[in-house]
C-alpha cells in the first residue's frame, strides 16, 4: 500500500495555546483509520490543521501528502503541505466534512456543488436527495441529518483521494447513521479513497470497520490499535480515563 498522508511530530497552537502536542499519523492509500477521543481532545483541530485553517498555527512538524520518489533510489516522500492554502490542499485531493458547518445565506447548495465539482474534474454528485433540498440555502435551518448529507454531497463533488469525516455520526438516529455509512462505503471506501473517521462514540465503526483506531487525549495520540472492538469495549466500560493509565501508551 502506498503512503498517502504522513504527519510527523506535529505541534499546533491557536490563540497562543498549544492544542496538538506532537502528533504522528500515517494513512495509506485506501485505508480507513479512526480518530477517537473525548470532546476537546484536539480531534477537530487536527482535521482543520490538515486542511489548512489559518486559525491553527503549525509550530513544529510536517504534513506530507502523496509522495512521489525523487529518483529511482530515493524513498517515497510526500510534499510538505503545511504551508499550503486550504484551497490548494483541496485541489490536491484532501477534503473535510465539517462537524458543524456554517450557514451561507443566499447561496443555494446546488450553486456550490456545481462550482466545486469542476475543481477536480468531478460531476454533480449523484445521491438520491430531494431536488428541493439542493435548492435550499447552505445549512440554513438544516436538521442534523440534512447537514451531514449536505457535507457528504460536497465531499463527493470534490472527488478526494483522502477524506476526513469529522463526527459525521453525531446527531444521527440509527437509520440515518446506517444511510450515511452506506454512502461512505459505496462512494468512498469502494473507490479506494483513504478515510479518517473522527468520532467520540464509535458506533459508525460497526458499519465502516476501520483498519486502525487512534485514540487521542489532550492533544496527543496515546494509542493505536487495529481491533476497534477492543478499543470501544475498554472505553465503554472504563471511559477515556482508563486510556490514560494504559501501560501500552503509543509512543
Amino acid at each position, binding site marked *: 500500500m502506498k503512503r498517502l498522508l504522513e504527519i510527523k511530530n506535529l505541534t499546533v497552537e491557536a490563540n497562543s495555546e498549544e492544542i496538538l502536542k506532537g502528533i504522528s499519523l500515517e494513512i495509506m492509500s485506501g485505508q480507513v483509520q479512526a480518530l477517537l477521543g473525548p470532546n476537546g481532545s484536539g480531534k477537530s483541530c487536527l482535521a*482543520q490543521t490538515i*486542511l*489548512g*485553517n*489559518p*486559525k491553527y498555527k503549525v509550530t513544529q512538524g510536517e504534513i506530507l501528502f502523496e509522495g512521489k520518489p525523487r529518483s529511482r533510489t530515493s524513498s517515497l516522500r510526500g510534499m510538505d503541505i503545511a504551508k499550503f*492554502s*486550504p*484551497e490548494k490542499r*483541496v*485541489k490536491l485531493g484532501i*477534503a*473535510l466534512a*465539517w462537524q458543524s*458547518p*456554517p450557514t*451561507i*445565506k*443566499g*447561496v443555494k447548495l446546488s*450553486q*456550490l456543488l456545481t*462550482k*466545486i465539482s469542476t*475543481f*477536480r474534474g468531478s460531476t454533480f454528485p449523484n445521491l438520491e436527495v430531494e431536488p428541493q433540498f439542493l435548492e435550499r*440555502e447552505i445549512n440554513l435551518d438544516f436538521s442534523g441529518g440534512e447537514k451531514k448529507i449536505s457535507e457528504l454531497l*460536497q465531499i463527493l463533488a*470534490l472527488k478526494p483521494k483522502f477524506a476526513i469525516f469529522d463526527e459525521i455520526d453525531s446527531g444521527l438516529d440509527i437509520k440515518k447513521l446506517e444511510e450515511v455509512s452506506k454512502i461512505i462505503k459505496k462512494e468512498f471506501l469502494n473507490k479506494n479513497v483513504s478515510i479518517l473517521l473522527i468520532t467520540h462514540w464509535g458506533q459508525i465503526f460497526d458499519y465502516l470497520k476501520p483498519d486502525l483506531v487512534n485514540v487521542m487525549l489532550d492533544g496527543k495520540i496515546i494509542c493505536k490499535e487495529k481491533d476497534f472492538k477492543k478499543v470501544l469495549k475498554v472505553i465503554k466500560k472504563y471511559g477515556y480515563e482508563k486510556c490514560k493509565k494504559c501501560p501500552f501508551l503509543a509512543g
Partner: protein
Amino acid sequence: MVMKNAKNVHFWQVDHKIKNIFEAKGIIILPSSEAWRRYNWVKSYFKRKPKEGYFIWVKKQVDFPLLTCITIASPKVSQDLTNLLVIEKNIKTKANVVCNAEKNNLCASHKAQGKFILKDGVLLEYNHFHKWGKKDFVSPDYEFILGENSHLLYTYKNLFPPQSLELKTAIYSGRNSSSNLNLTINGLNSKIKLKEKLFLEREKAQGIIRLRLVGRKNSQIVARSSVIATAASKGHLDCQGLLIDKNSKISLIPELICQNKKAQITHEASIGKISEEQLNYLRMRGLTEEEAINLIVAGFLKI
C-alpha cells in the same frame, strides 16, 4: 451591458441623442420635452421644462414589459434627464430599465429626475439596473405616486457603482396601496448616499423598504431611510449592510415617524462582516479567498 436588440427597446438614449423610440399599441412614448409641448397636463408633474429624458404613457393593458435604456458612451457627458411614466387605471405592467456607461473611464455625469404615476388599481413591477464607470457621477431622484389599490414592486440593483451615487427615492402611498422597495448596492471605490422616504398618508397603505448594501474596497455608504405614517397604515424598514473592507464605512440611519395611533411601523437594521468560519469553510471547498468573498456577497445580495 449592451442592448442586443435595440429595436425592442421602447426608449433608448445614448449621451444626449435618442437612438430609438419604439411605440406600441396602447403606449405613447415621447421625449419629455416634446410631451411638455404637446400635453398641458404633464406640466404639473415637471418642475421645469425638461431638457431630455422620456415620457411614457401606458394607456392600455399591454402584454410585454416596457424597456428603456439610457446610456453614456462619450467622455465627460453630462446628462440631465427628466422622466415621466404614467400608467392608467387597472393596468398591470412591468418595466425593465437600464442606465449605464459603456466604458469604465468616461468621467461622465448622469442626473435623472423621475416621476412615476400609478393610477388606481395599477400593478407595476419596476426593475432598475445601473452599471457605471468608476469615475462617473450619478444622481437619480425618483418619486412614485401610488393611487388607490395600486401596487409597486421596485427593485434597484447597482453592482457596478460610480465614483459618486446619490440616490433619492420617495414613495407616496394611496389608500390600500402597497409598495415594496428593494435596493441592492455593491459599494466599490465609491461614495454612496441614499435617501428613501416612504409616505404612508392614506388608510390601509402598506410599504416595505429593504436595503442590502455591501461595502467593498474604499466605499463610504450612508443610507437614510424614513417611513412616515400619518394614516392607519403599515410600514417596515429592513436595512442590512455587509462591510468587507477595512477602509470602508456603512452608516445606516433608519427613521420612523408615526403620526397616527393606528399605524404600525417597524424597522430592523444591522451591519455585519464576513465571518472567518464562512470564509474558511468555502476555502476548504476549494474556493480562493476572493471567490469565497464573492460567493458570500452574492448570497447576501441574492444575485
